[in-house]
């Protein structure tokens, strides 16, 4: 009960600051919308070659996961600013649970992601995407899991490096292979064999496949199962890492 209350206090504070300075939220939001509007139409004539029928039912899931990954990766930057101003230290000197200090922030990130996901899905519908409600719910849930994992990892990275200058290149380095190997823009199945094999080792690819299967209403698909498993595994690992960082002395 105390834990929920403490997480809530941290969450409310974070949300208030986000609302006061929504630049990051808007920038994070704008990117997938631009992809949807400016890249989506290019897929329409090609979609039959991917073995799919609706370009947006194919494309929106990829954009969702991209949003979940990349939006959340930047969550840690605001933490560095707070750390520099002594906020983290001041919070750590209170009796509040260290896990609550992380969880409150993660809930903020998840809420932000949920709002962005709803906007994206709504826009997709307007552009012609078709998906069942259970498929949407399941797909969004997977997105939230993977987003939570990335946000927790980003927070952990932020408290470990304590420097935007170190963090920015690290995130860039991680982001490129993730974007290229997870089939967010184009399906990996149209690539050569070696590229497909390489992408098998990219956990996010399975999550993208899972969200796609779920949007397509294909609940029996292998992709959904593996996507779910990978999302859960990444979520659990990242939460563990994040909590360990907040607990650690000297963070």
């Amino acid at each position, binding site marked *: 009960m*105390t834990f929920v*209350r*403490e997480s809530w*206090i*941290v969450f*409310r*504070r974070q949300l*208030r*600051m986000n609302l*006061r*300075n929504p630049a990051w939220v808007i920038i994070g939001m704008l990117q997938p919308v631009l992809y949807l509007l400016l890249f989506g139409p290019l897929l329409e004539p090609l979609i039959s070659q991917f073995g799919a029928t609706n370009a947006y039912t194919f494309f929106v899931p990829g954009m969702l996961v991209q949003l979940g990954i990349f939006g959340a990766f930047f969550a840690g930057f605001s933490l560095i*600013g*707070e750390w*520099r*101003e*002594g*906020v983290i*230290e*001041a*919070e*750590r*000197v*209170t*009796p*509040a649970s260290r896990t609550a200090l992380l969880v409150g922030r993660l809930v903020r990130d998840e809420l932000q992601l949920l709002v962005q996901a709803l906007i994206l899905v709504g826009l997709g519908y307007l552009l012609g995407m078709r998906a069942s409600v259970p498929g949407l719910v399941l797909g969004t849930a997977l997105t939230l899991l993977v987003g939570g994992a990335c946000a927790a990892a980003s927070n952990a990275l932020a408290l470990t490096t304590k420097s935007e200058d170190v963090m920015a290149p690290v995130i860039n380095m991680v982001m490129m292979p993730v974007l290229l190997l997870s089939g967010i823009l184009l399906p990996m199945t149209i690539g050569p064999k070696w590229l497909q094999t390489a992408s098998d080792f990219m956990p996010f690819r399975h999550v993208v496949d899972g969200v796609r299967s779920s949007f397509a209403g294909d609940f029996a698909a292998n992709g959904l199962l593996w996507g779910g498993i990978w999302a859960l595994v990444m979520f659990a690992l990242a939460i563990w890492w994040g909590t360990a960082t907040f607990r650690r*002395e*000297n963070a």
Partner: protein
Amino acid sequence: MIHARGLVQTFTTRQGREKSEVRAVDGVDLDVAEGEVVGFVGPNGAGKTTTLRMLTTLLRPTSGSARVAGYDVVTHSVDVRRRIGYVSQAGGAFSQARAGDEVVDHGMLYGLSRKVVEERGKHLFEQMQLDGLWTRMPKTMSGGQKRRLDIVMGLIHEPTLMFLDEPTTGLDPQARANLWEHIRGLRDRLGTTVFLTTHYLDEADTLSDRIVIIDQGRIVASDTSENLKTQVAGDLVDLELSDAAHVHDTARRLEAITEGRDSQVTIEGTHVRGRVPRAGRAVPGLLRDLDRAGLTLDSVEIHRPTLDDVFLTLTGRSLRDAETTARTGDGTDAPLPTAADAAGSGLTPGVPPASAADAPQGALR
């Protein structure tokens, strides 16, 4: 209130490929009684903040133990946290949030209700001369206001023990003097025990009942400012002779009243200088003695020692030098001394004040 034995903190640092272990705090014993105001003094890099972080449960001691506010910092860290306030060098309020919101959230993390925190917070704002700033963002506040806001945050759960880490670093002289008033008020009005670190000697001198000096991770002295000055350093007696031929004779006589201490009597032109414990008692006799011997003086000056003299006697280095070494030694985040530092600390080793009237005799405690 604080009872620490053998606190040690080692860090591993890496220089190129070589790993080396640095003992930032090297066996600190510390006792602070309830209601005391203790100044924890030492050059940057001496281990002040590291010690403080161990006492405030933010850093687990490598070895040794500490009981703070009645509880062990390692095994009962949450109980310690409930009872202590800590104002770090960085502060604690986010510059782009509203001051009042930050105070309320901070207090609520202690389990207090919103109503209680708001009442207390607004009351503390008045006491700390922050009235009308409840909805202001710290980034628009002056340095002094921001520090007072940090102290309000540290006080919101009514701690019995308050830790202040370099509370006035970077403030202008007026803001410092004002903050000193408020820090005194913590004990006088609220009965809070105060443990503050500083590398400004005048600050420790003005605020503390007792001064604990740390150097290179070890406590080198712990006593009242008065005792440290009298016993450790002694007063500086500066005799100016009208005839330079008499300096050696005079130096011998000055040596005789230094009570066998290593007085380091020096001769420079017509000046003879040396350190004498309780010079006020010993010098009249010396003057009569000199008079009888026909050694005439042009002037006599007695300077009360500064805490820097104490530091110099204890460690063989002036606090300033120690700071320079610390800074070039490890390049830590030590802030450069500000103009306020130089103006306020009255720290002028080797350059005695122009006249006896300048000696801070009356200003001492």
